[in-house]
């Protein structure tokens, strides 16, 4: 079990958040690429949400056509570089690699993908050009993976694209939310800059679209609008004492961490509430920030956790402790958090019941709520005739068009929270959907 010292410098932070999938060097890439079997109708391609022609790009790497490999990747996935290191490859492409069936380690597809695209990005290799202008304009709300992918694809089709982004950096949760040991801020921003240099879409930062007036202005000025706003802030739990100092939402905690790195001070004792991937990330990160004790508390059993097993393992290996079948009932403390009061839960007749007779307090200085993000329901309610489902996800047809025909959507806003690769796929397809619609 790892013990992390609180990082006080950038170097210490980088050490504690050492990249899980570091950039391959040429030799590593060459040997790894040589292992690919070039399967027919390869299962890895089927497992990739963006259907990258993986055997092709691996062969291209092996034959020293790195530019070609990079093109193959970006052709299918505009965020191919980030995806290579942030995708949960074990359950996607690499999980499907046939080598697994003979207990041979699967090809490191993600790292090869990252290697190839990184080579083009670093050498500023020009791979794409904007299409000839067709005089039409698209507005994109949100510069997350979905928005960026939509913008890139739309530019190749000849549209003028303006992205309206609430924050001051592009790429949404890839830069504000994903664990720092998966990708660095520099790497995320480098990829967007690379794409922007070639394709020339505009991003208007600190430009949240929040009112009916602003939407109306977009509707007049643009032929189509893509909604790629992702999810909102961490949901309120409604616990007693939840407003005490020292109770934070996971995405807010992670965002601060990603922006301020070692300048963030994580106290000695941390409780993370939740059982999803975000909870695992937050717990891992708190431990890596030097918390002496980090406890992960989940209301159901280990088997029922939403998180991937490997993310849980990673948290445990960072020194995180876990508590199962416990649910928080109050935050205790005097203005500032001093602990979380939990009640045990048990499965009675297939239903998880809270046993109020069995409660206890876990002392801590920081509570991180990783119990889900709210949806952007308010924004959706401002758009005329926009249908959402009972989980506040925007409903789209197979062209990624919403019930208001001028609006298209993709990413976490339509799936309720998935991966970057899904957002990248949606954004690309939505741009094609817009193109088909405008050319009907």
């Amino acid at each position, binding site marked *: 079990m790892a013990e992390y010292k609180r990082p006080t410098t950038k170097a210490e932070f980088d050490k504690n958040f050492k990249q899980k999938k570091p950039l391959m060097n040429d030799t590593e890439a*060459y*040997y790894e690429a*040589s*292992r690919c*079997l*070039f*399967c*027919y*109708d390869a*299962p890895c391609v089927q497992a990739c949400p963006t259907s990258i022609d993986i055997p092709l790009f691996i062969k291209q790497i*092996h034959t020293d056509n790195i530019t070609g490999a990079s093109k193959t990747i970006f052709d299918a996935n505009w965020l191919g570089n980030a995806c290579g290191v942030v995708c949960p490859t074990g359950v996607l492409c690499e999980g499907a690699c*046939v*080598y*697994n*069936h*003979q207990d041979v380690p699967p090809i490191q597809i993600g790292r090869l993908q990252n290697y190839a695209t990184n080579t083009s990005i670093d050498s500023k290799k020009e791979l794409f050009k904007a299409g000839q202008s067709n005089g039409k304009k698209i507005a994109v709300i949100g510069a997350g993976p979905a928005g960026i992918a939509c913008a890139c694809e739309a530019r190749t089709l000849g549209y003028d694209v303006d992205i309206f982004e609430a924050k001051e950096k592009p790429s949404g949760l890839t830069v504000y939310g994903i664990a720092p040991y998966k990708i660095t801020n520099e790497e995320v921003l480098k990829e967007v800059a690379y794409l922007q240099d070639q394709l020339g879409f505009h991003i208007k930062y600190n430009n949240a679209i929040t009112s009916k007036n602003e939407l109306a202005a977009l509707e007049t000025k643009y032929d189509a609008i893509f909604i790629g706003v992702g999810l909102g802030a961490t949901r309120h739990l409604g616990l007693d004492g939840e407003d005490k100092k020292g109770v934070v939402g996971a995405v807010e905690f992670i965002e601060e961490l990603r922006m301020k790195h070692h300048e963030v001070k994580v106290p000695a004792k941390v409780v993370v509430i939740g059982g999803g991937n975000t909870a695992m990330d937050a717990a891992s990160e708190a431990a890596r920030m030097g918390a002496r004790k980090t406890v992960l508390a989940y209301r159901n059993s280990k088997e029922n956790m939403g998180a991937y097993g490997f993310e849980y393992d990673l948290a445990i290996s960072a020194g995180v402790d876990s508590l199962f079948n416990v649910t928080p009932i109050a935050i205790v403390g005097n203005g500032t958090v001093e602990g979380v009061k939990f009640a045990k839960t048990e499965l009675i007749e297939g239903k998880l019941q809270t046993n109020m007779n069995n409660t206890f307090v876990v002392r801590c200085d920081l509570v991180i709520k990783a119990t889900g993000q709210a949806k952007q329901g308010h924004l959706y309610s401002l758009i005329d005739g926009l249908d959402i489902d009972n989980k506040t996800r925007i409903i789209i047809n197979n062209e990624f068009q919403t019930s208001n025909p001028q609006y298209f959507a993709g990413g976490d806003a339509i799936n309720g929270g998935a991966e970057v690769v899904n957002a990248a796929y949606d954004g690309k397809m939505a741009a094609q959907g817009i193109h088909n619609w405008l050319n009907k």
Partner: protein
Amino acid sequence: MIDLSINFGGIKAPNPFWLASAPPTNSGYQIMKAFEAGWGGAVWKTLGVPVVNVSSRYGSVNYRNTRMMGFNNIELITDRPLADNLREIEEVKKYFPDHAVIASLMVESRAEWEQIIKDVENAGADGIELNFGCPHGMCERGMGSAVGQEPDVLKTIVGWVKEAANIPVITKLSPNISHITDPGLAAVEGGTDSISLINTIKSIVGIDLDSYAPYPIVDGKGTNGGYCGPAVKPIAMHMLKDLAQHPEISKVPLSGIGGIETWRDVVEFILLGATSVQVCTAVMHYGFGIVREMEAGLRQFMEDKGYNTIYDFAGKALPNVTEWKHLNLKHKVVAEINADKCVGCDLCYIACDDGAHQAIALSDDPTNRIPSIIEENCVGCNLCSLVCPVEDCITMVKKDDGTQSITWNERTLNDDIPVSFDDDRAGGKGHFVPEPSDALKKKR
């Protein structure tokens, strides 16, 4: 008791593992190091006419993650002074009297041959190998493969050498010729004591895509090299077999050369009639230490099979290497896929569908990637089993009961061979082939 020692046409050695005349035998230092490591003999880097070498001498063919699968060189014979080499031969023999030290020679005139033979005999060499093989550089000066390609000239020179030499003579043949038996027979008629083969094959291993020059590049230009390494083994074995099956040539011992790296290679060459083997590229790649794996493997093989000396099994494969016309046309194998081992790469499917006989089917259920053999379409060509990446997953299973046999030769004698293109007796008649337009329908 296993005894690996050999007597190769009068040259004795503690084992059949010899270093071929090449860079690893350039000096007494290297050869002593090799003998220490376990090699039984060494053919000294060719001594002869004065030469000058170029810088940048080797090129390589890499395959996947394997370096030097094929290897070529444009290095000439030794460029070290003759006196130094002779002195070192003498010294090596002093330390290793029982090991075979063979002097490879290449000169032009009869007088030169006679002189150099005397020199190496005086130095204590156990034998002479005539380098009639180098396909680069030296041949432009009328030596090396230029001799190997002219059986009459070769025979004459072998005659000169035999007349002058008191120690055994090995003639090393060039593969750069249509029928290896022509120079082989010439060597035997010239009186050679034994033959070694193959020397390197004329080759261009690659072209640099920026300078447009062949490898190895010497200041922007290149020339053909001599090809060796694992890639040439099949060619070497075929030529060895041709000599070993020849009634006259097979009277002399044969030393096998060409891509030998492991004990398996050694055993295969011996099974085809070699009674010593010579190695170069593998040593250039991994050093002298590889001989340990060769020796251990050879001993294990002999122990498992109950052989005491390599002569117990030398040439044992030769009766089974026959002409096509003597193969049993009734023999039938078909592929069988072990579903438990199959990983679902479907390479066998695409190999058969695109490259063979459309005898492998994919499941209609896209989640099931395990292909199946369409037995009636399978001609038993082996392709699927060769492309399969899993050990023993696809096997070729015998389907005939072994009671019947007929060969093309026998059918010819019986007057039972197809005589026209549409003859019913022709092989492919009635065999399944899809409609051409099916190519456009098939999609998964």
